[in-house]
C-alpha cells in the first residue's frame, strides 16, 4: 500500500491535449473515484499511473518514488480492466496465479493465496474453468481475484462494472466496497456512473474535458458543487438550472427571462442586477404554497418511479423537474404551488463557477 502523488500531469496525443495540468494527492489506503463523461480523459490518467501511457509533462510518484519512466511491471500495481482482459488460454486458477508465477513465488504460497482469494470471491468451484465458460459476473470476479492475489501498492479499476447488468452491478459495487474495507488498499476507480462514484468513494475527482473540476467527499460534491458541470453531473435526476437576473432589495427576486420571478427567502451572495444561474435539486423543491407570494408551476408530465414521483414542471417557458415521495401528486395536473427554500439554492456566476 502506498500514497500516489500526481503533480501537474499533462498528456497529449500528437498535438491533441487530453489532460491539462492534473494535480492530485491520493493518501495511503484511500478510495478515490475519477468520474466524468466519456472521453474526458479518466482512462488516460489511470493508464498513465499504471505505466501503460507515457507522461507528456509532470510527475507521478508512488510511495514517494518517481515512476514516470518505470515499466508497468516495476510499479507494483494491480489493475482491473473494463474488458476484464482474462487470459483465454489459462484456467481461472492460472489466471489468478499468473502474476505470482512471474515473480517465482513458491508453489505452496501460490496455492494458499489463490485459495484464499477464491474463497473471498466465491470462485472455488470455478478454479479449473477457462474464462470462456464463465458468465459476465464470474469473469468480473476472476479479474478482481487476479488483482488481489498479490499485495500491490495500489489497485486501479477502469470501469470494471460497465459490462454487467444493473442488478449485478449493484451487487458487485457493494462487494468492491467490502473488499476495500477488508484490504484497506489504496484504490483508484474510474467510472462514468455518478452513483458508483457517490457510493464507493472516500473522495471523488470530477473531471471534464481533461480538466479536474472538483475534488471532495461525495457529499461535498452533492451539497456544494464547485461549478455548473459538477452540479449537473452529480445527482439523478439532475439539478435544475435557471438563467436570470438577481434583484436585491427587501424582498429579493430572481427573474428568469423577464417573464417570471422566483421570490427568494434570503438575499443571495450576488450583486444587484447581476446575471447568474440559479440551481436547485429536484428533491429539494417544496411542492406547497409559501406566503406571501405563491409561485405556480404548470404540470407537464408525471413520472412514477415506484420509489417516488418525478414531476416535469414549467415556469413560463423554463422546464424543470421536481421529485417527491408524496403519492397524492400522481394525479397532479394544471398548476401546483412550488417553493425553492433558500438554503437549498446554488448560485453560479457567468463563468459557471459557484458563488
Amino acid at each position, binding site marked *: 500500500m502506498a500514497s500516489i502523488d500526481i503533480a501537474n500531469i499533462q498528456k497529449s496525443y500528437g498535438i491533441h491535449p487530453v489532460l491539462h495540468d492534473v494535480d492530485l494527492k491520493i493518501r495511503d489506503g484511500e478510495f478515490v473515484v475519477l468520474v466524468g463523461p466519456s472521453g474526458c480523459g479518466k482512462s488516460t490518467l489511470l493508464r498513465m499511473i499504471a505505466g*501503460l501511457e507515457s507522461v507528456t509533462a509532470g510527475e507521478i510518484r508512488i510511495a514517494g518514488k518517481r515512476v514516470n519512466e518505470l515499466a*508497468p511491471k516495476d510499479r507494483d500495481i494491480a*489493475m482491473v480492466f473494463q474488458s476484464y*482482459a482474462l487470459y483465454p488460454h489459462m484456467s481461472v486458477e492460472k489466471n489468478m496465479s*499468473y*502474476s505470482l508465477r*512471474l515473480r517465482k513465488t513458491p508453489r505452496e504460497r501460490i496455492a494458499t493465496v489463490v485459495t484464499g482469494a477464491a474463497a473471498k470471491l466465491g470462485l472455488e468451484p470455478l478454479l479449473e474453468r477457462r474464462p470462456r465458460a464463465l458468465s459476465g459476473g464470474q469473469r468480473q470476479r476472476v479479474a478482481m481475484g*487476479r488483482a488481489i492475489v498479490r499485495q500491490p501498492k495500489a489497485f486501479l479499476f477502469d470501469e470494471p462494472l460497465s459490462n454487467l447488468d444493473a442488478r449485478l452491478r449493484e451487487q458487485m459495487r457493494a462487494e468492491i466496497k467490502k473488499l476495500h474495507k477488508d484490504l484497506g488498499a489504496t484504490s483508484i476507480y474510474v467510472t462514468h456512473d455518478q452513483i458508483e462514484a457517490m457510493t464507493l468513494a472516500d473522495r471523488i475527482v470530477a473531471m471534464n474535458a481533461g480538466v479536474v473540476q472538483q475534488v471532495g467527499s461525495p457529499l461535498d460534491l452533492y451539497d456544494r458543487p464547485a461549478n455548473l458541470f459538477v452540479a449537473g453531473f452529480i445527482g439523478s435526476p439532475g439539478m435544475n438550472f435557471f438563467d436570470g437576473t438577481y434583484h436585491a432589495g427587501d424582498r429579493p427576486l430572481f427573474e428568469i427571462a423577464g417573464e417570471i420571478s422566483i421570490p427568494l427567502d434570503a438575499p443571495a451572495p450576488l450583486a444587484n442586477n447581476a446575471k447568474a444561474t440559479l440551481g436547485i435539486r429536484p428533491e429539494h423543491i417544496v411542492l406547497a404554497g409559501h406566503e406571501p407570494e405563491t409561485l405556480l408551476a404548470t404540470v407537464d408530465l408525471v413520472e412514477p418511479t415506484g420509489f417516488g414521483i418525478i414531476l416535469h414542471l414549467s415556469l413560463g417557458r423554463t422546464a424543470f423537474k421536481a421529485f417527491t415521495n408524496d403519492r397524492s401528486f400522481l394525479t397532479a395536473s394544471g398548476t401546483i404551488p412550488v417553493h425553492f427554500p433558500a438554503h437549498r439554492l446554488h448560485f453560479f456566476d457567468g463563468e459557471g463557477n459557484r458563488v
Partner: protein
Amino acid sequence: MRAKSAFLTVAHRLAILAYVAFALFPLFWLLKVAVTPNDLLYSEGIRLWPSRASLEHFDFVLRHSAFPVFFRNSLIVSGSTAVVVTILASLSGYALSRFRFRGKYWLVTLMLLTQMFPLVMLVAPIFKILSPLGLTNSLTGLVIVYTAFNVPFATFLMQSFFDGIPKDLEEAAMIDGATQFVAFRQIILPLTLPGIAATLGFVFTAAWSELLFSLMLISGNEQATFPVGLLSFVSKFSVDFGQMMAAGVLALIPACLFFLLIQRYLVQGLTAGAVKG
C-alpha cells in the same frame, strides 16, 4: 411438427452427402485409376472399381521414375516457403496490428497492389531478374519467388489474427509483471497458434500445387517440383494415366498429413473472432 423437423434433418443430411460426394469424387477417381492395372484401364468400360486392383503403378513410380526427386524438391520448396513466409508474416502482421509508424498507409497500399497483377504478366520480368543471379533452375530461386508472392497475403492474414487479440491482454500481463517480450511469448503467441497454423497450411498448399513459375523457371528433371514432374508422364505418343494418378495420390499424402497435424488449430483459427467472448 416432429415429422417436419425429421424431414428437414434428413434433407439436410442428404444435401451434405451430395456435396461431399461431388467434392470427393475426383479424388476417388484418382485412386481408382491409380490401382487399375494397365491392361484393364481401357478394356473394362466405365465401372466404379476395377475387377482386379494392383499397386504396380505405385511400385513403378517409386522405383523406376524420377518421382522421388520431384517429391523431395517439392517438399523442400513448400516447406521452406511455408516456414519463411510464416515467420516474416508473423513479424510484419504484429507490427501492422500493434504499432503506429510513418509510411504504414503506403506500405499497406503497396502490398495490396502486388496482389492485383495476373501472375502470367510477371513471369518474363522475374525470369529476367533471376537469370543473371543464377537463381533460375534452382530451388532457392523458387523459394524466393514463392515467398515474395505469398508474404503480402499472409501478412494480412496474420494481422487479422493479431487484431483479434485485444491489446488489453498484453497490458494486463505487463501489469501482472511481464515484460513486453514475455507478454508476447506467454500470452499473445499461444493465442495466435491457430493463425500461425492456418498461415503455414495455406502457404504450404499454395506452394505445393504451384505450376506456372515452377514450369517457367525450372528446366530438366533435377530441380523440378512435383506439379511439373507430373507432366513427364505425358509423352509424345501416350499418357501414362495409371502412373500419373499413382504419383498424384502419393503427392496428396504430405498435404493430408500436414493438415491432419494442424487441423485442431485450423478449425479454431478459421472461426476465431466469429463469436465475441
